């Protein structure tokens, strides 16, 4: 069995074969088969082998049966099972990626949209299939000048890793412009990698395409190594996750922050600049990567609460109980696959809950969610009742005009 995740510290590469003998695997052996993982999984009923059954099958030496089922594609790596496991087993960190890699390698056919996204990511460094040269095209509409390190390589405080949907998707570009405006207002010394930046690759890894993830980490670490910067700040929730947990093990030394955490840390300086009253009721959707996996529940809420005229209301499922938008682990490109199996899109499920709060704005902090939720709002006929905004967009709006900053 092939390429897999490196085990932190020196040790043999962890594979499905030696999994149960590894420290993490011995821990998995202590599974009490309670089934909370399957119960909390948003697609648990659609999966032939939820984590509890996978562990049972591995113990019984029946791994091949598990790997032959493509239903693990329903795992959107939302970290729900891991967060709820009473034994504290690292299901989403250790077990599921290893099994998923093997499942992916055995798929008779990769679902078409996922295949295209992976091929695009390999060739162009972004799943949208856009020109790598246009990765910084959004800066043309930026309210403040944006330095690109390839053309001006002086040391910088904040190396801002924009990520793909933020750099290319029209609504993601709105987030980029908002973030640039906030950096400008705070007087942050920042720069981007532009065309040298490639997808951080977290979704490729968790879709099971670990070889692609390795190619992307190689390329990104090489480029990051060329420049001098004090901290890496990213707009991507999944990129933040990858940098914090995977790139770190591969030698990334600098501190890593998500834009939400970065601005929350500087809230005292930001607060006096937030002068424009928005007058809206906002509900916040916790991204799985930031929330359940990295415990970042308070930062986005603190930012929203600091905006004048924002009333914050919570959805029934929030923080550790928040339900996933369905975009993780390759799910971003599996809506057709899910639908063909008769399953509701998780973004639709989440949007219904958001609308039920009566809020005007659904605030998010992950670039996938803007397009996913906007699409769901349209499909369900709610587009006049609710809009989707990245937290940074709401902050930038509260700044008022750039010259006022």
């Amino acid at each position, binding site marked *: 069995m*092939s390429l897999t995740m490196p085990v932190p510290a020196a040790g043999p590469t962890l594979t499905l074969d030696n999994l149960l003998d590894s420290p993490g695997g011995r821990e998995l052996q202590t599974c009490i088969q309670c089934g909370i993982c399957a119960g909390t999984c948003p697609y648990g009923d659609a999966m032939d082998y939820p984590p509890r059954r996978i562990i049972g099958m591995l113990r019984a030496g029946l791994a091949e049966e598990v790997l032959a089922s493509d239903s693990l594609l329903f795992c959107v790596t939302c970290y729900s099972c891991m967060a709820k496991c009473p034994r504290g087993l690292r299901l989403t960190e250790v077990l599921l990626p290893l099994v998923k890699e093997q499942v992916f390698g055995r798929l008779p*056919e990769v679902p078409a949209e996922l295949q295209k996204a992976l091929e695009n990511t390999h060739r162009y460094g972004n799943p949208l299939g*856009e*020109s790598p040269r246009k990765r910084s095209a959004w800066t043309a509409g930026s309210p403040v000048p944006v330095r690109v390190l390839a053309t001006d390589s002086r040391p910088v405080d904040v190396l801002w890793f924009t990520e793909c949907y933020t750099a290319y998707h029209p609504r993601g570009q709105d987030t980029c412009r908002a973030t640039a405006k906030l950096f400008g207002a705070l007087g942050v010394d920042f720069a981007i990698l532009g065309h040298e930046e490639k997808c951080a690759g977290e979704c490729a890894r968790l879709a099971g*395409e*670990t*070889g692609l993830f*390795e*190619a992307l980490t190689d390329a990104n670490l090489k480029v990051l190594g060329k420049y001098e910067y004090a901290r890496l700040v990213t707009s991507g929730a999944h990129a933040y996750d990858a940098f914090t947990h995977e790139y770190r093990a591969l030698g990334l030394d600098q501190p890593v922050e998500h834009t939400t955490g970065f601005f929350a840390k500087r809230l005292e300086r930001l607060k006096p600049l937030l002068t424009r009253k928005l007058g809206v009721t906002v509900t916040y959707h916790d991204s799985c990567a930031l929330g359940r996996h990295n415990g970042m529940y308070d930062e986005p809420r603190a930012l929203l609460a600091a905006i004048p005229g924002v009333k914050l209301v919570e959805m029934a499922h929030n923080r550790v109980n928040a339900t996933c938008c369905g975009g993780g682990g390759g799910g971003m490109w599996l809506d057709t696959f899910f639908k063909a199996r008769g399953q509701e899109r998780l973004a639709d499920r989440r949007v219904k809950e958001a609308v039920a709060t009566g809020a005007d704005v659904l605030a998010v902090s992950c670039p996938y969610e803007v397009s996913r939720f906007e699409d769901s709002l349209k499909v369900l006929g709610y587009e006049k009742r609710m809009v989707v905004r990245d937290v940074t967009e709401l902050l930038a709006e509260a700044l008022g005009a750039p010259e006022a900053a």
Partner: protein
Amino acid sequence: MNVLVLMKMVPDIVEELEIGADGRSLDLDAVRPIVSERDDHALEQALLLKERNAATVTVLALEAPEVDEVLFTALAKGADRAVKVTGLEPAPATAAAAAVLAAVLPKVPNLMPVDLVLAGCQAIDDLDGVLAPSLAERLGIPYLGIVTGVTVEAAGGGDTASVLKEFAGGTRGRYTVCLPAVLGVQAAEKPPRYVPVAKVRAAMKARTLEEIPAGDGGAAPLVEVTAMTKPEAAGKAEMLEGDPGAVAAKLVEILAARGLA
């Protein structure tokens, strides 16, 4: 059964195309080459034949930037051999390439005779689809283009293939083709398969590309490009601005000036 797949690189139009300094070719520094999409379908069709008929699949390409990765990818997907024709820079134009291929194929060790030659029926730099029929003519074997499916029945002795060809309006014809033959593939029976990056990397480590010199089998191009230009704006829209009354008056004036009102 031996199946030969011809693959070639074309400009990737994800980037803006620019005209080169000579004014009659593309600026190749401004674009990245990519494998021609229909050639990828030709490979997929060959791999389907390999699965159904235990065919041996050889992929062959003329030397070009980034073609090595395309050939290794084909090996990772299941092709048995990959051959690169070297010594041709820059790559010859389509009709000349057919002449090169016809001359070089007999020189590839243990390749000929092949039962089927599959190539894309078109490429973005060969919209007339000249390559495959030109090659068939030079090899003196039949050609069928716009192909969307190929079946070879072992029971039939393997000397004919049942080939689907597409026509306008979704009409399709089924042909019996005597082998050997050259087929211009429009689309394989299913979309080209995905191959994990790790498998391509493994192929790059473990497999080798066979190289064969092109020799002087090339022919002078039959047509010559004399000039290449970007699309030019032939006219422009005039936007009428102001309040509706003023716009309407202006519009009437313009129409009257052209004798339309």
